[in-house]
C-alpha cells in the first residue's frame, strides 16, 4: 500500500489532528469557539481553516496543480495575515502537516519504499510552505495598497477640484487611482 493510500484512508483523522494543532495557536477560549461553532457565517475563521486544510490535503495527495493549491492556501493565509501573527507564525501551519503525518503513520512499519515516498511528500510540503510565504507577503502588501488607496480615494475629488491633477478617464473601469498614481510619479 502506498503512502498516499494510507494517508487517504486516515484522512479524517489526520485532518482533525492538523486542525487541532492549528487551533492550538489561538487562545484556549477562542479555540473552543473556532472548533465547535459549525455555522460558517457565525464562525468564518474556524470554517475557513477547516475547509482550507481539507482542500490543501486533497490536492497534495492528488499531486494537484499549483494554481489550485495556491488558491486554497490563500483562503487560510489571508485570514492569518491579519490576526496578529508574525510571518513565521502565520505560515507555520503548513509545517504542522509534516509532524501530523509522521505521527499518523508511526504504527506502520517504514519500508524503504514508504520512506522514499514520505521524503517526497515532505519535500512537497516544503514547497507548499514556500508558496505560503509568498501568499503571506502578497496579503501584507495588499494591506499597504489598501491603506494608500484609501487615502487617495478620500481626497480624490479634492485634488481634482484643486486642479492638482487633470482628469484622466479611460474607458476602463476604476482607473482613477492608476491615473493619480501615474500623475504622481510624473510630478
Amino acid at each position, binding site marked *: 500500500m502506498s503512502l498516499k493510500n494510507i494517508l487517504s484512508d486516515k484522512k479524517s483523522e489526520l485532518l482533525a489532528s492538523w486542525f487541532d494543532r492549528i487551533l492550538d495557536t489561538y487562545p484556549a477560549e*477562542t479555540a473552543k469557539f473556532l472548533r465547535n461553532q459549525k455555522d460558517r457565517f457565525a464562525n468564518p475563521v474556524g470554517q475557513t481553516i477547516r475547509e482550507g486544510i481539507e482542500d490543501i490535503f486533497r490536492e497534495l495527495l492528488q499531486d494537484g496543480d499549483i494554481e489550485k493549491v495556491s488558491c486554497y492556501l490563500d483562503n487560510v493565509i489571508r485570514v492569518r495575515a*491579519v490576526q496578529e501573527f508574525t510571518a513565521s507564525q502565520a505560515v507555520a501551519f503548513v509545517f504542522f502537516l509534516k509532524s501530523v503525518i509522521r505521527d499518523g503513520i508511526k504504527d506502520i512499519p517504514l519500508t524503504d519504499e514508504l520512506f522514499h515516498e514520505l521524503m517526497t511528500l515532505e519535500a512537497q510540503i516544503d514547497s507548499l510552505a514556500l508558496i505560503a510565504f509568498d501568499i503571506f507577503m502578497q496579503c501584507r502588501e495588499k494591506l499597504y495598497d489598501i491603506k494608500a488607496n484609501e487615502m487617495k480615494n478620500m481626497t480624490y*475629488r479634492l485634488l481634482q477640484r484643486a486642479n492638482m491633477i487633470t482628469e484622466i478617464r479611460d474607458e476602463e473601469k476604476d482607473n482613477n487611482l492608476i491615473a493619480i498614481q501615474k500623475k504622481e510619479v510624473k510630478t
Partner: protein
Amino acid sequence: MAKLPKPEELLQLNYNPPPSEDWMDRPVELKQGNFCWGAKGKNLAVVEFPNARDWTPVEADWKLPKDWEGTVLEAMADRLSKYRSFKVFMDICVRCGACADKCHFFIGGGDPKNMPVLRAELMRSVYRKYFTNSGKYLGRLAGARELNLNVLKEWWYYFYQCTECRRCSVFCPYGIDTAEITMMAREFTNLLGLNTDWISGPVANCYMKGNHLGLEPHAIMNSIEGMIDDIETITGIRINPSFNRKGAEILFVTPSGDLFADPGTFTAMGYMMLFHELGLDYTWSTYASEGGNFGFFTSNEMAKRLNAKIYAEAKRLGVKYIIGGECGHMWRVLNQYMDTWNGPADFMEVPKSPITGTVFDNAASTKMIHVTEFTADLIKNGKLKLDPSRNDDLVITYHDSCNTARGMGLLDEPRYIIHNVCNKFHEMPDNTIRERTFCCGSGTGLNASENMDIRMRGGYPRANAVKHVRDKHGVNMLANICAIDRATLSASMDYWVPGVRVTGVHELVANALLMTGEKERETNLRGEPLPGKGGNE
C-alpha cells in the same frame, strides 16, 4: 547555534496562556495595527477638551494629568447617577456567555477580550472595586480590581476596538448594550485627553468648519459643481442646486464623506439627480454640512455640540423639514438623540412629501426623514420613471448598517427601493443581515489606516457572507446606506472578496432614473458603459 524551535514552539511563545490564567493577570500589550494614533493637542484644544497635548500611545508615559484616577472615578460616579443604562448594565450581567461569540472582532480575530462580556468586565471590575461593597471588601474574589495605569491602557485599547454596533445587545437576555459601556469609557478617556487622531481631527473640523473633512464653504460648492459637471456629461442635464438658501422647503443634510470620497460621491450625485427630477425645493447648507457626528465617539456633550448645527440651520433658513442622506451612525443620532438634545423642532412642520402628499407621521417630532423613506414613498406612488435594466450589469446584495438596523429598524425601505431599481438582487444568509447584520469593522471612528489589521479582522464576518453570495450568485456589488460603509467596505472587499464593489442605494436609483429631457445615456454614474452600450462587457 542555539537549538532551533519547532514550529509549534514558536507559536506557543505568544499564545495559549495556561488555562488557569485569569484575564486580569494578562497585562495589555498595545500591538501595532490594532490601534489608532493619538490625538493632536491642537485638535483637542479647539473643542476645549481637557489635557490637550500631543500624545503617542506606544510611549510609556501617557502624559496624564495629576490625580487622573480621581478624575475617572468622579466621572464614573457622575455617569452612574445620570445613565440608568450604565448603572443597570454594570450590575445585572450574569456572564451567561450568549454574547461572547457575537462580536465581529472576536469572530474575526479571536482575542478573548473582544468578547463583549469581557470588554464590559474591563469596566465592571473597576466599578465593583469603588462602587460596590462586595468589591470593596472581597476585592479580586468579587471580580474587582483597582484602577491603575495598566487598566487605563487596557480600557483605551479595547474600548477603541468596539464599534458600538450593538450586535451583542440583540442576543443578551437583558439587552445589555456594550455600546453604552464603550460610550462611557470614551467619555472617561476623553477627560484625560486620550483620544485618537482619527476621531479628534474630524471633531475639531466639524466644530469649526461644519464638516469632518474641514472643508470651507467654497470648497463644498466646488466639489458639488464637479459632480454637476459629471452629471451633465452623463445625462446632458445641467442641474443647479442651491446653498444656504433661505425659504427653501427642505434642508438636505448628508455625511460630508459623500461629497469627496468615491464611491460616496456617486451616491451624492444620485440624490441631486433625483431631487432635480422631482423639482424639489431644497437647499444644501455649508454650515450644517455634516450629517455624521464623530463627536458621538468622544462624549455625549461633544456629540450634542456638533449636532446642534442641524436644527440651528433649519431654523435660520426657515425650512419646513429636513431630509437626511444615507449614513449609519448619523441616523442613530438623529433617531435616538437629536430631538432630546437640541429639540423641540417646533419651528418646522411634520414632513410631507410635496410629490405624493404623504405625511411622515413617524417623524412628527424630529421633522427629519430618511432619504430612503422619502424615495420608497415616491416609488410606491409611481412617481418615478425607472429603468432597472440600466443596472443589469450589477448583481446586488444589501448590507444593513449596524446603526440603522439596531438603532432604528430601517430595514425594508432600502430593500424596497433596490427591488425597484435593479433586477438582480440576492440576500446574504439570514444570520448576517437585518438585526443580526455584521459591522463593517470600522465604525465609531476606527476607519483609520494605521489600524488596518484589526479593521480587516473585524470586517471578515461581513466579507465572508458577501463572499458566499459572490460565489453562489455572482454578486458583484454591495449596496448599503452608510458613508462609512462605502469607504470601509470598499477596503474590506478589496482584501477579502476582490471583484465586489460598493455602492450607495441612491447611486442605483439615479442610474435607473429616467430623467425628463435626458440624452441617451451611454454610461452609468461611474463613467462605465451601461449594459448593452458599447464597451466589451
